[in-house]
């Protein structure tokens, strides 16, 4: 099946370290900006379908032995707002049960206004800010 590309947001809509819920082709997508790089996850937590874009963006807690805590990859995980499962924003992988509970990760790219295809922002956004960059999600 061929994939469709949707323009879902302006890059400026999603500041680094934040997320935004967008809709592409009828699907809720949680869009994340990690230090200028964009990632999109299905906005439905595979557990009970909590909305991931309402979750806190956090680092990953590690320990080599009891009592030796360490935070790594700060800002690269999202914690589901409901039961706190942690997902790697880059891959959609859940740390706690990698096989069973992977969130669907979509390919994202940043594209300049002239390449726009279809999507909720297409017409309007295209017109007002030709110079702006838009986030495109491929489904």
């Amino acid at each position: 099946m061929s994939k469709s590309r949707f323009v879902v947001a302006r890059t400026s809509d999603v500041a680094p370290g934040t997320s935004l819920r967008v809709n592409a082709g009828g699907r809720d997508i949680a869009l994340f900006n990690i230090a200028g790089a964009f990632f999109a996850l299905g906005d439905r937590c595979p557990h009970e379908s909590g909305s991931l874009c309402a979750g806190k963006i956090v680092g990953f807690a590690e320990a080599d032995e009891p009592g030796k805590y360490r935070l790594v990859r700060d800002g690269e995980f999202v914690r589901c707002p409901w039961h706190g499962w942690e997902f790697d924003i880059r891959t959609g992988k859940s740390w706690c049960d990698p096989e069973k509970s992977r969130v669907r990760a979509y390919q994202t790219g940043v594209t300049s206004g002239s390449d726009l295809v279809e999507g909720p922002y297409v017409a309007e956004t295209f017109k007002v800010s030709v110079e702006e960059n838009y986030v495109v999600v491929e489904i």
Partner: protein
Amino acid sequence: MSMDLLEPREKRKPGGALQGLGVVDCDIHPQFATPGEILTFLPERWRDYVRTYGGFYRQPLADTLSHPRMAPDVARADSWPPGGAPPGGDLAFMQRQHLDANNVDHGMLMPLNRGPGNQRNLEYGAALATAVNDWQIACWVERDARLHASIVCTQEHPPFAIAEIERCAKDPRFSQIMLPPKSLEPLGRRRYWPIFEAAEAFDLPIALHVGGINGYPATGSGWPSYYIEEQHTNVQGMQGLITSMVVEGVFEQFPGLRIVLVEGGVAWAPPLKWRLDKHWKRLKSEAPHLKRLPSEYIHDHFWFTTQPLDEPPEDSDLLETFEQVGLDRIMFSTDYPHWDFDEPSFVAAKLRIGPEKLRAIMSGNARELYGLT
């Protein structure tokens, strides 16, 4: 958190047989819109007392729970109302996010606020209980008739508790009595029997929602270090509660008493029944006042709420467990707005049972117990 979290999301899976079913949620937590809100319901003397002395519990931390939680206010991260009230503190938001969105026909309020039953100053506890009861009516039930209040009271001094129960029981907007399962002594002990007598007389179920502060460590071997352990002690606590109430003979004395266990889960109950039956048979001579198997008292007198839903690796184990408890004794609950909230469609999907049984769990059992339409 912005209001757009409430904007409709893509259509959820219909949740099988749940389509269109109005549920009864047996565990909703209302919160004070502002910390001062409750003060307006307290007499001046106790307003002063609170301002001067604050919380006075049997634990080292004056104003917070013993173990810091993993989420602010123990709440779903998306449950903070935009107007600045805490989770559960804004009825309009609760209506949109939960009552309407999840098709809740009836919601049982479980006010945990400030634990009147665990106040060391009994007179303050009694005044606080009255205030919390009045607050439930004025700020919640009056404004949304889907909600039902629970009578909170000071179980450590039964005369105060009974006076409060008598005051409220006439009002049909109260559907049950609510006690903290962590009392000064195990709840089956005779000091609490006058309260059971009142509950039986007014034909009100008693809801026991996990929690409370009684000064004892949360396990039989002291305080655990971590929240993950402390949270789990709700399970041991509920088991202890059933053990105490059954073995002490409460249900021989009060055959009409109905107990609702809230937020303790369910799956531990079948092994507990087996354990009680097996060892009671051997130790019968110590407890000859029990005329029937402990498991029979449990079935006849206890109702269990679903949240936090037990999640065995095989869904069929969940149903097996529920059947061992009795499908007529399981009642749906969400724990809104707390972090371990369960969605109706999730529970329905995990159970995979026919529409009639599902209807009983999601709604019918509670309607029958509480006499709701």
